């Protein structure tokens, strides 16, 4: 591991890559602060730029920096405006905003930054420990196991979608898989479902799809409902953020919270489909339950512990979500799915071979996470009062620019105006789906995994000339059973809970 970190340090400390970390963190913070634009949209917009860099290490470092920056920026707008830019920082506003109202905005931002820093750093250490171990196991996997593993990943994403949402998430996953079958695959060398259209020959472009699924609906929602970007606070954007220090007692109070939540957040982040949002809510809930008496009463009224818990948890979870991506090549969240798409476009195949074939990429990313966290702490924190000025850009100017960058992202990769029409069409579809409460991340993950899923499936079928690989490889069978359980368990538990509730109502 030490050797790896040395490789990473030498790669990450080139001038170009350091510049990428700083640029990524700054851009991410800027855009992440805007209400309504989540990390997925930001990364989708940044991908064409990252791809034209040509160097996969630099590109991945840039995108990872943007990811961190976006989460950090999201917590800033949660604290200052009570308007979380990112779902993962909603829990931050529970205690951060009351602190800002008390005139402790500066202190709240510092605590958030320190907690994020600690969460991100501890997460990166855990990543450096667990990723190599996991990828040595993953080397034993054949295409049959990969196929099964992807099925597990896809069903886990659906299973964690929340109560009453599992079937909808599965439906979106299948829709994503269906979209992935459009075009000419490498496997069969014949066009499928192109309906004779030349523009569909190479399939649906994943950047276009990512933009259409996330950036465009968010922009449309900002237009539809101005309350989403409301600035109901007097502190917002005024730049009067003073008193960045917190006291020694407060520091002592948050250290155990940060330690616990960093570790817990990391492991939640590793699970496919869980991610930063669940980690932050769970972290908040756990700390509130652990806290005693007076401390517990403070939660929700501006408790430093209540602020530190979700902040360290969501950053650690972001790092944790890189584990399945880097070791198995399977994304567990929408954001890492977009990163995977970017990597494939750069000719890098993430997976267990990545550590062996291209250790410099692997370790440079991990090292850049440490650097990125330091950058966020020492560069962004003092700059926050100035960066927060972006919150005062009038929305009349902001929204056309968001739309424009969405269009550009889809256009400059392809240089094809039809791509833009597809973007608008798919964007309208995504907006309607969002209205009907369908989760869209499963769609994108299904789309990105679709080709790989089919290739691995076909390869195992060819090797065993039939479906025998399911029975003859115990690991494949076990994984498929896990996938089935993951999908069925939530509905089973819901049914049992309902039956119990009915029992109570009947009085027995």
């Amino acid at each position, binding site marked *: 591991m030490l050797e790896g970190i040395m490789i990473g340090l030498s790669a990450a400390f080139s001038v170009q890559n350091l510049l990428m970390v700083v640029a990524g963190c700054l851009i991410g913070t800027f855009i992440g602060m805007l209400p309504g634009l989540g990390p997925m949209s930001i990364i989708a917009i940044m991908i064409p730029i990252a791809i034209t860099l040509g160097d996969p290490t630099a590109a991945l470092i840039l995108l990872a920096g943007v990811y961190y920056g976006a989460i950090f920026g999201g917590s800033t707008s949660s604290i200052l405006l009570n308007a979380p830019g990112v779902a993962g920082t909603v829990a931050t506003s529970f205690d951060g905003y009351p602190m800002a109202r008390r005139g402790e905005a500066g202190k709240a931002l510092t605590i958030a930054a320190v907690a994020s820093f600690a969460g991100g750093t501890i997460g990166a250490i855990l990543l450096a420990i667990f990723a190599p171990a996991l990828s040595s196991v993953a080397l034993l996997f054949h295409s049959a196991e990969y196929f099964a593993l992807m099925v597990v990943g896809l069903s886990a994403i659906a299973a964690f979608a929340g109560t*009453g949402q599992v079937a909808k998430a599965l439906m979106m996953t*299948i829709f994503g898989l*269906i979209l992935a079958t459009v075009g000419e695959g490498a496997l069969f060398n014949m066009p499928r479902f192109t309906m004779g259209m030349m523009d569909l020959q190479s399939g649906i472009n994943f950047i276009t799809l990512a933009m259409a699924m996330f950036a465009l609906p968010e922009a449309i929602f900002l237009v539809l409902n101005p309350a*989403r970007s409301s600035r109901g606070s007097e502190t917002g954007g005024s730049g009067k953020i003073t008193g960045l220090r917190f006291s020694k007692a407060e520091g002592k109070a948050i250290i155990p919270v940060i330690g616990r939540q960093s570790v817990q957040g990391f492991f939640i982040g590793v699970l496919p489909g869980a991610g930063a949002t669940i980690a932050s809510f769970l972290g908040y809930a756990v700390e509130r339950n652990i806290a005693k008496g007076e401390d517990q009463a403070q939660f929700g009224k501006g408790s430093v512990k209540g602020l530190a818990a979700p902040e360290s948890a969501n950053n650690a979870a972001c790092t944790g979500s890189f584990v399945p991506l880097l070791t198995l090549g399977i994304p567990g969240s929408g954001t890492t799915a977009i990163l995977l798409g970017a990597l494939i476009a750069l000719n890098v195949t993430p997976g267990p071979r990545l550590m062996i074939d291209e250790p410099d990429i692997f370790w440079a990313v991990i090292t850049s996470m440490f650097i990125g966290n330091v950058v966020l702490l020492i560069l962004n924190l003092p700059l926050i009062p100035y960066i927060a000025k972006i919150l005062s850009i009038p929305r009349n100017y902001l929204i056309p620019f968001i739309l424009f960058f969405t269009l550009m992202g889809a*256009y400059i990769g392809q240089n094809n105006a039809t791509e833009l029409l597809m973007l608008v069409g798919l964007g309208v579809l995504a907006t309607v789906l969002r209205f009907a409460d369908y989760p869209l991340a499963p769609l994108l993950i299904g789309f990105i995994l679709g080709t790989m899923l089919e290739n691995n499936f076909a390869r195992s079928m*060819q090797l065993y000339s039939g479906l025998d690989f399911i029975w003859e490889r115990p690991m494949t069978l076990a994984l498929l059973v896990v996938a089935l359980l993951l999908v069925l368990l939530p509905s089973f538990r819901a049914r049992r809970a309902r039956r119990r509730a009915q029992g109570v109502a009947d009085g027995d």
Partner: protein
Amino acid sequence: MTLDRWIALIFIAFCCIYGYAAFFTMDQLLPPFMQRNPVWPSTFPKVLAVLGIIIGLIVLFGLEKPSGEDEPSAVDINYRRLHEYNLGQALMLLVLMVAYALALRPAGFLLATTVFLAGGSAILGERRWITMILIAAIASGAVWYLVQEVLGIFLRPLPIFLR
């Protein structure tokens, strides 16, 4: 019927068409040597079509019970309140995006982008015309320079008749 069930119904119809294409139109085109493979290009789509129809039916008939209705907050987006939203603005912006897509080549990047950005602001209610057009023009010039010179991607800057 609620919107999500309508979507499930449309999805089932879509899967039926997709499944029809997979089951009945793809295999005849297959060259004989590929027919001996255990996997055909239509295999995976067939599986997907069947799974899609099953899950679509589950959503359609509401077999999975929702967890209990939460009152949507003002910030959440909800189609039942669509009439309260700025629907006209959103539709006009979408039309503007389509127009931009169609005009990008013939009108050139600089002109199309300036008009798009200024037009977008105008649709959202901005009325300081000079500031607006100035910002739009500077921004499109800057983006063109960045994309063309820094990233090295060719974007046709000028309209068709000035080339």
